[in-house]
C-alpha cells in the first residue's frame, strides 16, 4: 500500500529510518523543515517558475502529467512542490505534524498573498477612489487591478461585471435583496436544491417571505446527487431564478450548470451559481456556463478572509437597485434622495477591504502561475485516491455519488462511521493524530436531514495536500475507529 512508497525527491532529508519506517518518517522531513525557512534558497520559488505557464486558466498545461506511477518512481507531486509556499502547513498540533484536511471550510495562504498584505499595509495603505495623493492612487490602482484579475480569472466580459463583497454569502444576499425584491412577486417560483449551502437558501427564504414567492426544492437521487431530471421538470414559466451550486461542499458532486442555465433561460428565468467550491479548484468560465450571477469567496481560494465577489452580467447589474447605501455607491446626495453610481460601485458601499482585495488578486496570480488545469488534474487524482482509500475502510459510509470513469468527484468526502458519532471521530483524529477534519452539518442541514443523519465528518483536500497525507488520515481513522469499537 502507500506505506512503502518512496519519499518524493524534493525532500533532501533521507535517512535510514525513511526506509525502515516509511510511514512515520515520511513526516520527519517536513518536521525538520520547520527549522529552515521554506523559502530559503528559492526552494519555494523554484517549483513555481519551473511550471510557469500562461495565466489563462483555460490553456492546457504543458507541465508533465502526474500519474501515480510517476509518483512511485519518486518524482514530486504538485502537492509536494507547492507545500513550501504555505507556511502554516509546517507545524505540529498536539505533538503531531499537522495534516490539514478542512479546505472546504477555508484554504491556506501562500507567502505571495501574505507578502502582498503586509506590503499593502506597510507601504501604500490608503483609502481608495477618493484621494488624489500618491498613496491613494497607488491603492486605487492595485484595488482595481484586483478587479481586472478576478474578471479574467472567471472570464467575465469586462471588469465592471465583478462586484467585491465581504464573502459569497453577502454576494448572494446582494442578489436576493437587490435583484430579487425588485423582480420577484407573489406566486413566482425560486428553484433550489436540498444540497444547497445555508447561505444560498436563507436569503431566498427572506425574499419568499417578503414577496409571497414559493421555494421549490430539487431532491436527491438514490446516488445521493441532486436530481437533474426533476430540476428540469420543475422549471416552468413561473420560475424566476434557479439557485444551484457548481460543486457540492458535502456530496463532492458537480452539477451540469451550463445545461441548467440553458433550461432556465428558455423560460426567461435567471441562474445564480454558487461557485465557492469550484472556482478554487478548476477553471470556471462564466461565458461557457452562461451564468447570470456567480458568487465565490476569496478565503476558499488561497486569498484572505473578508472579501468575496459577485459576477453579474452588466445588463442585469445596471438595472439593479442598490443593496447597501452609503459612501462610494452614490453619484450625488441631496436631503431627500440621492442618485447612485454605476455598477460595480453602486454595490460597493463604504470603504472596502482594500488590502484583502489586493491579496485576493495576489492569490489569483499565484493560482494562475501554478495553472488551474494543473491544479484540477492533480486534485482529480487526489479525489480518487481519497475516495478509494476511504471506501476501503470498514464501516465507513461516504455520501454523494460514486465516481465513474467519466464523472469524477471533488477532492472531498463527507462520511460517517457506523455507531460512532462524527464528533468523536474528529476529536480523536485531532487530539491523537494531528489530523484536521470537520464534523457537523457543514451548513447543509437540509441535506443531512434528507440523508437521514444529524451530522457527518468531512475531509476536504486542496492542491497542497498529498497522497501521503491521505494515508496518514486513513491510518489515523482506522486507529480511531478501533479505539471506539473495542470500547463499544
Amino acid at each position, binding site marked *: 500500500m502507500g506505506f512503502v512508497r518512496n519519499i518524493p525527491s524534493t525532500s533532501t532529508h533521507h535517512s535510514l529510518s525513511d526506509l525502515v519506517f516509511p*510511514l512515520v518518517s515520511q513526516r520527519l522531513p517536513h518536521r525538520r523543515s520547520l527549522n529552515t525557512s521554506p523559502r530559503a534558497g528559492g526552494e519555494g520559488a523554484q517549483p513555481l517558475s519551473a511550471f510557469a505557464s500562461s495565466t489563462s486558466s483555460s490553456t492546457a498545461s504543458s507541465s508533465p502529467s502526474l500519474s501515480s506511477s510517476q509518483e512511485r518512481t519518486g518524482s514530486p507531486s504538485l502537492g509536494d512542490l507547492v507545500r513550501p509556499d504555505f507556511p502554516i502547513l509546517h507545524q505540529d498540533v498536539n505533538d503531531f505534524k499537522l495534516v490539514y484536511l478542512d479546505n472546504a471550510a477555508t484554504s491556506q495562504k501562500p507567502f505571495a498573498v501574505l507578502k502582498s498584505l503586509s506590503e499593502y499595509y506597510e507601504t501604500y495603505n490608503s483609502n481608495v477612489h477618493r484621494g488624489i495623493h500618491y498613496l491613494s492612487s497607488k491603492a486605487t490602482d492595485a484595488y482595481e487591478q484586483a478587479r481586472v484579475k478576478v474578471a479574467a480569472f472567471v472570464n467575465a466580459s469586462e471588469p465592471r461585471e465583478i462586484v467585491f463583497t465581504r464573502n459569497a454569502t453577502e454576494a448572494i444576499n446582494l442578489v436576493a435583496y437587490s435583484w430579487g425584491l425588485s423582480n420577484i412577486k407573489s406566486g413566482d417560483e425560486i428553484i433550489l436544491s436540498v444540497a444547497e449551502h445555508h447561505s444560498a437558501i436563507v436569503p431566498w427564504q427572506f425574499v419568499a417571505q417578503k414577496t409571497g414567492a414559493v421555494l421549490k426544492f430539487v431532491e436527491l437521487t438514490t446516488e445521493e446527487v441532486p436530481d437533474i431530471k426533476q430540476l428540469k421538470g420543475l422549471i416552468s414559466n413561473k420560475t424566476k431564478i434557479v439557485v444551484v451550486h457548481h460543486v457540492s461542499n458535502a456530496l463532492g458532486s458537480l452539477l451540469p450548470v451550463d445545461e441548467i442555465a440553458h433550461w432556465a433561460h428558455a423560460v426567461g428565468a435567471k441562474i445564480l451559481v454558487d461557485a465557492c467550491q469550484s472556482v478554487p479548484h478548476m477553471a470556471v468560465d462564466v461565458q461557457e456556463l452562461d451564468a447570470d450571477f456567480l458568487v465565490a469567496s476569496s478565503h476558499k481560494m488561497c486569498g484572505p478572509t473578508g472579501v468575496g465577489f459577485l459576477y453579474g452580467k452588466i445588463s442585469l447589474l445596471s438595472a439593479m437597485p442598490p443593496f447597501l447605501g452609503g459612501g462610494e455607491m452614490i453619484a450625488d446626495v441631496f436631503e431627500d434622495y440621492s442618485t447612485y453610481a454605476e455598477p460595480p460601485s453602486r454595490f460597493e458601499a463604504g470603504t472596502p477591504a482594500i488590502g484583502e482585495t489586493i491579496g485576493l488578486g495576489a492569490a489569483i496570480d499565484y493560482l494562475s502561475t501554478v495553472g488551474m488545469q494543473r491544479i484540477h488534474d492533480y486534485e482529480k487524482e487526489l479525489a480518487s485516491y481519497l475516495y478509494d482509500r476511504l471506501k476501503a475502510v470498514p464501516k465507513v459510509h461516504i455520501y454523494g455519488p460514486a465516481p465513474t470513469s467519466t464523472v469524477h468527484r471533488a477532492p472531498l468526502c463527507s462520511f460517517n462511521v457506523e455507531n460512532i*458519532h462524527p464528533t*468523536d471521530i474528529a476529536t480523536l483524529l485531532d*487530539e491523537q493524530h494531528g489530523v484536521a477534519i470537520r464534523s457537523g452539518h457543514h451548513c447543509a442541514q437540509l441535506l443531512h436531514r434528507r440523508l437521514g443523519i444529524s451530522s457527518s465528518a468531512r475531509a476536504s483536500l486542496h492542491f497542497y495536500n498529498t497522497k501521503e497525507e491521505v494515508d496518514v488520515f486513513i491510518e489515523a481513522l482506522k486507529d480511531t475507529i*478501533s*479505539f*471506539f469499537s473495542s470500547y463499544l
Partner: protein
Amino acid sequence: MSSAAARPFPGELIRGLRSVAEPRSSFVSFRRLSVVSFPLAFQWFSWPKSRSPLRPVRSQQPQQQQQQQEEAVDLAILPQGLREIISLFQSVSDPKAKYQQLLHYGGRLPPLDPRYKTDEHRVRGCVSQVWVRAFPDPGDPAAVRFEADSDSALTKGLAALLVLGLSGAPAPAIARIPPEFVHLLGLRQSLTPSRNNGFLNMLKLMQLKALQLYAQGGGDPATNSASGEEIASSDGSVGSVITEVPVGREANSGVNGNRVDHRPALTSIQEVSEVNLDAVDDISPAPTGGSGGRAARIRERLQRELLPLELELEDISYQHAGHAGVRGSSDGETHYNLRIVSKEFEGKTLVKRHRLVYDLLQEELQTGLHALSIVAKTPSEVGMK
C-alpha cells in the same frame, strides 16, 4: 431512575481502566515506543510537580501553563466526587488512556428517559446532542442529583464525569465549581466561552438547574424555572450568583451526615475516608485502612505474581498530603510510584499492563491506596535479557 446507577462500583471503575482497545495499527505503537522508552528510566524519580512523567515530547510551555492552571484551582471547594475523579485522571498519564477513562464513564451512564430529551434539558452549543436533568436527591433534599445523555461517546463521557462529580453535592457547592477544574484532568478542553463550547455550557446548565432546585427548596423543577432565572444574574454568569446565597452550617452538616449514603463512590477509599472539606474546620478523623506495611504487601504480591526482574516502589504520599482527597488520612500510604520490569508484560499494551497490576492490588485499592503511578516494562524494553 435507580440510585444504583449513580454509584459505579469501585471495582468496576478500575476495571474500566482495562476495558480498552488494543491499538491495532503499528503506526501508532511505533511512535509511542520510540518516544516513551528512553527518558523515563532517568526522570521518574524526580517526580515533577505536574505529575505526568509519562507525557512524551510535549513542549515545555503548555506544561507550565497547565501547571499554573492546576495550581490556580482550589481543590477544597470542589465536591468530593469531583476531587476523586480528578485524582483518578491524574494517576493516568497516557492521553489515550484518559480518553478510555472518559469513555468508560460514559458507558456507565444509564440512558436518559426519552421524556427528558426536550429543549428544556438540551445543552446549547454541542455539535452532538446533549441533555441534562437535575433533580433533588430523594434521600437528602439539600443535595442535587443529575442525569445526562448524549449521542457522542466523548461528550457522554464528559457529561458522565460531571454527573458523577456533581451529584450528591448541595447546589451552592455545585454553583461554586470553577470550570477550570477540567484542566486538572489533563484533557484538552477549551474554556473559551462561545456558543460552541459544549463542556462549558453543560457545566453552566447543570449549575443553573441546581440553583433552580435550590430556590424551590426541592420542589418540582419544571414549575419553578422563573425563580431560577431571577437568581441567575442578568449577565448569565452563574458563578457570580453564589455570593448571594447563604450557605448555612446546618445545610452542610446535613449533607455531611448523609454523605456516606449518597455520594457516588468512585474508588472504594471514599467509603472509608469521609471528609467534608467544604467545611474546612470540620475535619473528622477518618478510618483509612492505612495500617502500615502497605508497601511490603504490594511488593510481596507483585513479586509472587509477576516475578519481576526489577521492582521499585516509592511512597510519595507526602507529596499529596495537602490535597483534598487525602486530608484526614493518617500515615500516608496513599500514593505510590511503581516501576516494575517483568516478562509478564510481554505482548501487552500499556493499558493492559496497568490493568494487570491493578488487578493484583485490588485489596490495597479498597483499603486506602489512592493512586498508583505505574511504569511497566518488559525485560527487552529495558535492555535486559
